[in-house]
């Protein structure tokens, strides 16, 4: 119970910290707000178009690779869980990881020519 209490107190204090900072800022900072201060500048110029127009589409292959590897890593993790209590079945995991290691090295070599821009 005392641990749960400590976690609750800590969470409350952690959540209060940024609020205290905001409050301190309200008290300490000057209140003279003008429209000119809120204008955006890019290299000293007034920005043109919206920022989102420059989104690089060619990065999407990485998102697909991420999804593929995320599924694989979850599969590995669940298999690893199984051998915590039953180490005699570790051969299955050894085989799985052997295949995955070899295929990830092959994938790494194939990924060499993936287009990148940023």
């Amino acid at each position, binding site marked *: 119970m005392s641990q749960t209490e400590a976690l609750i107190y800590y969470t409350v204090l952690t959540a209060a910290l940024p609020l205290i900072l905001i409050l301190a800022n309200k008290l300490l900072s000057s209140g003279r707000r003008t429209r000119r201060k809120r204008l955006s500048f890019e290299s000293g110029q007034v920005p043109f178009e919206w920022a989102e127009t420059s989104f690089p589409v060619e990065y999407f292959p990485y998102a697909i690779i991420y999804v593929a590897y995320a599924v694989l890593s979850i599969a590995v993790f669940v298999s690893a869980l199984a051998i915590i209590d039953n180490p005699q079945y570790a051969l299955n995991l050894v085989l799985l990881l052997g295949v995955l290691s070899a295929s990830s090295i092959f994938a790494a070599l194939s990924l060499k020519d993936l287009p990148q821009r*940023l």
Partner: protein
Amino acid sequence: MVVPIPPPLDQVIRFVASEPFVKAAIFPGATFVAVLGILSVWYERKLLARVMLRIGPFHVGKYGGWLQVVADAVKFLSKEYIIPSRARRKLFVTMPMAALVLSALLFAFIPFSEYWVIYRSDISVLLIFLLLAVSPIPFIIAGWAAGSKYSFIGMIRFAFQVFAYEIPLFLALTGVIIAARSFDIVDIVNAQYAVPFIITQVIGFLVFFIAALSEAERIPFDLPTAEQELVEGWMVEYGSVGFLTIQLAMYTKLDALVFLTVNLYLGGWHGPMLPGIPATIAHPFWVFVKILVLLSIVLLFRGVYTRITMKKILDLGWRVLIPLALINLFIVSLTVYLPTLTA
């Protein structure tokens, strides 16, 4: 004659002196985390100054300009919090706060000894990974919400960097879990009583350490906030208390990752016996010694290494760290399987 303490005051004193409150508010809780964040900034400045043959903070504070960071914090708090006209106002304000809360919550599950931990959970490694996985999201949203091209490019870079390094981090953690046969960090540290995992899983340690550096956006992985080209990247529009909150969140996260590395790979609080000193003090002492060494290495990278390009960052994550993490897991699972053959 003893003056009796009035009951309401007595209750307040008992509450403040209670174990849960001391752990949550003082050590290893909120006060410790805040002081640690401030000291990390000061230590980085002094260390980098020595590397660059400068003095560093000097004038504010008697000993090594240690009050300079406090003075800077007061300066940030006294500045007007300007929200750009193109920004998504609510997200722009709330995301730095969310980032700080998520970063600080990591310390709730990181033990300094078997006793000095805010919340000891059977699945503390998973809870920490959950927080680590969620913690970049406020930064990404903050970069998007600022409504600037610089912050947007920084946000895109950060998102792809996090994508590339999250899976190696998770796979390296899995190796530690298999070796210790537990999700509890206290059990994981105790499993390293004889030999720390940095020796038995040196590949896993390298993968975890590099991925942690990337998660914390430290040089050479600080491309999302590249000062020279993107003028602080995704946080370019932030000033005043917003910038202060982000900095505090980033340094808190860095400290948490260093503590986590010490616990997972460097044997945590295990070290040579200190004669005459009880374990409740000796254990945190060894943690701090290891933290200081590892933090110094991490901070020194800023003075030693250059920033690497996005292509190299992504290449390292996808083409090097993931295969290495899988090979590490392969070796760890072999070390679990081979003893069962002889048994």
